[in-house]
């Protein structure tokens, strides 16, 4: 079995990417802001080292779901902002749909199991 990296416990495969895509499609952000946002929204579900975002971000850049552009941080410093591309948006929609389907399935199965 593959050893799970300690700093990256995924809820399900692709969860981190999904969260990144969802967050960034709400608002393009730079790395630090994204890390803070993820910590805020996931709280205890997702304990990540901030750095572990970066390999994921690179993967998504390579897949063409994200792109970068220069922008300003909350402190008015020039920073690289990550933005969701059209392809990324499509991917997000697909993934959300399949996640919803999965949850629906799980709910149904659990409901049936209780009867």
């Amino acid at each position, binding site marked *: 079995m593959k050893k799970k990296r300690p700093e990256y416990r995924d809820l399900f495969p692709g969860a981190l990417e999904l969260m990144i895509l969802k967050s960034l499609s709400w608002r393009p952000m*730079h790395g630090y802001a994204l890390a803070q946002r993820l910590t805020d929204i996931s709280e205890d579900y997702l304990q990540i080292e901030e750095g572990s975002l970066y390999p994921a*971000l690179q993967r998504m850049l390579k897949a063409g779901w994200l792109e970068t552009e220069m922008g300003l941080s909350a402190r008015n410093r020039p920073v690289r902002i990550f933005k969701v591309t059209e392809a990324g948006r499509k991917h997000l929609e697909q993934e959300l749909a399949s996640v919803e389907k999965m949850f629906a399935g799980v709910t149904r199965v659990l409901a049936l199991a209780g009867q």
Partner: protein
Amino acid sequence: MCLLKQLFTRRRRYDELSESIREHLEEKVADLMDQGVTREDAERTARRKFGNLTQIEERSRAIWQWPTLESILADVKYAIRQMRKAPGFSAVVVIILALGIGANTTVFSIVDAVMLRPLPFAQPQRLVEVKGSEEQHFESSDVSYPDFFDWRARARSFEHLLSYHDIAETLTGVNRPLRLDGEVVSWEMVPTLGISPALGRGFSAEDEKRGSRVILISHAFWKTQFSEDRSVLGRSISLGGNPYTIIGVMPAGFRFPVTQPNNSFWTTLAVDSDATDIRPLTVNRSVHFLTVIGKLKPGVTITQADQEMKALAASLAKQYPDTNTRHNSAWVQSELASVLGDTSTLLLVVLGAVTLVLLIACGNIANLLLARVHERYREIAMRSALGAARSRIVRQLLAESLLLGLIGGIAGCVLAFISTPAVLRLIGDSVPRAADAGVDLPMLGFALGVSLLSGVVFGIVPALTASKTDLVSTLKEGGYSDTPSHDWLRSSVVVGQIALGIVLTVGAGLLISSFVRLTRLDEGFISDHLLTFTFELPDSTYKDTRPQFYQQYFEKLRALPGVQSAAGVHNLPMTDDLAMIGFENPEHPVPKGRQPNADLTFISTDYFRTLQVPQLRGRDFTDADNMQAPQVMIINEAFAKRYFPGEDALGKKLRPGATNGMPGGPPLREIVGVVGNTRHFGTQREMPPAMYLPVGQLPNWCCLRSVVRTSVDPMSLEPAVLKLVSSMDSNLPVTQVRTMDDLFSLQLAQPRFAMILLGTFAGLALLLTVIGLYGVMAYSVSRRTREIGVRLALGAQRSAVMRMVLHDAAVLLLIGIAIGVAASVASASVLKTTLYGVDPHDPFVLTVVCISVTLTGFLAAYIPSIRAASIDPMKALRSE
């Protein structure tokens, strides 16, 4: 493509990544400082929260990379750096490898061309050769026309059967008469070989009928003689005074037989059914001179065909006991095997030898690498201390040896490219199809494969050894730890090299001594100052006037300045011409089919004097031995010994089966002379019985080859001879102008090239072995400097130190030699067919080889032993 783009944009990606991470940390630090943390603490916390910065950056970068390829590239880069760091070492390795791989590639390209390539015909795997043979003796023989016709009509295993034999004809009606080589074939040539004419049609069954004269011509002949004129079809050309109609042109590259690349034309066996002959060849069951190729029906195996043909030959022997008793069996083998004959053994021996050379070379390099591993222990230990896995180190070291292998391979290809033409010149015509060898894809593929393979062979042991490095002790001892197991390894490599070197040198020694014996053999005549050449007197002009022409011609020839004597002979020694014929001894009659055979040739007067064959008894032929005189013959010593043991052969009468137009068949001939034996082929193992008949008593037989004993350089007579012949008839091209020494040398081409190649390889192997031994001893001395220093400091004699080193070398040598001798004795029998007059286990050769290997081995160990003895104990002890 985007891969390329990715490579270029990657640098920018990496920069952006680092920037992003830096920005991230700065923001975080700023946030933390806003909360009142000191800058120092804020930075520390930010980094801790971020995680392992280097690792994360590396992993993020890795997204953009092709991980395996990149790390291999890194290995290669590192390997190149390592090579640059040790240019001398790398150069030595590359040179050794280039020699090994170059030799292998050269030999392989020849083996590929000769043995591996299919014959250039359609479905070559279905082509077989069918030979006649005698059941008891397994000696194969050529086939007679009537037998061939019966086979063709009755055999069920074949789609087609094709008979052929060589012919040479003079093309006249052109500016300069031209001697052309060709082939007389049965009509099925095109369907059997599956190669259609590029122009025109193939033969049909009607073309075999008596009186038909049609030919197919070669593409080369079409090009040179007819400038590729397409209207050549239907045109008539004159060959040997007879008109032939061109019905087709074979495609360029068509060669049949494959061993006769110069054939210009193919005609049908109609030429052999000439009604003007007393008994045309096509109806003469006792003249065996055809080669037969069969195309097996699909699904028929060679064994099945062999069985059918054996049964068929046996039934023909019952039907025609007079002629076929000695041809009561047959023999089918694949056509490729028959083309190759004995040469495949020879080539495999050479290939084996050259493989051993490469193996020895790999051994040397492995030892060099093992020595270097010692020097690199610290580096390797450092790498594994920094977290390199064992597999990673093995891969790194293997990358280095593969790179060396590749560079050696490239250098080897260059070497092969240069040496192949030289080797081909050496081989000449002695190996069929060898001339096709050259730089091509299979050869380059082979070189690449061998390079990588040898890279692994010489790299794997050092790499595994190195990766087993014990970290702690190596680093603690500063990399100077002694690991005796590696000495053991290096020593066994050297022992193996010595053993292989012995095997090769013994093989070469056997071939050399066999060759020396061949050249020193008594041919039975004196071969220097002899010029030979030939021209044909075509039946169309000379059918009745041949004897007169010859008489005039030899008179004029003998009168040329520089000519001591001259004669004509049908089957000259050292040419491949040979005829055997049965004879009858009225004193000891045997049933007709069981008559004994002997070599037969017919000669002019003065033949024995010209070749200086000793006249042992009786007389030579004279001009008086003509058709009107009593019929006579001369025999050689071997003939007299075998058929007249303890008797006087002179005056005995025999009836050789040579018809000469006299009524009542072949005449009874009186033996008037006994001459010394002559060797007919350069590699003939024994002197066979032979009969000589006077040409004056065989007026219808054609033709004589001229042989001239000269008092000057034989070749200097060539112009005078050509002038003489053309002055007598300008339509007689003279061909095959050669000295007897050249003919002899051609005969020995195959044993010579085997000897030279194997000798070269053995020399190379011995050199590499000695270098290897020297390397091991020198290295062991340098590693034991301290130990030797201590010994000397404690009072050891310098001579004792020397003896110690020499003793070590002697142990390696003796073990290697013992193994090598055992292996040679076990394997030498593969050389049996290529050896003449030498036993494969010749003790003389074995002894000489062992002594010379021992001596050179000691020489190689002597230098390190001197160095060991001259170690200064003080310096040695201080140096570490």
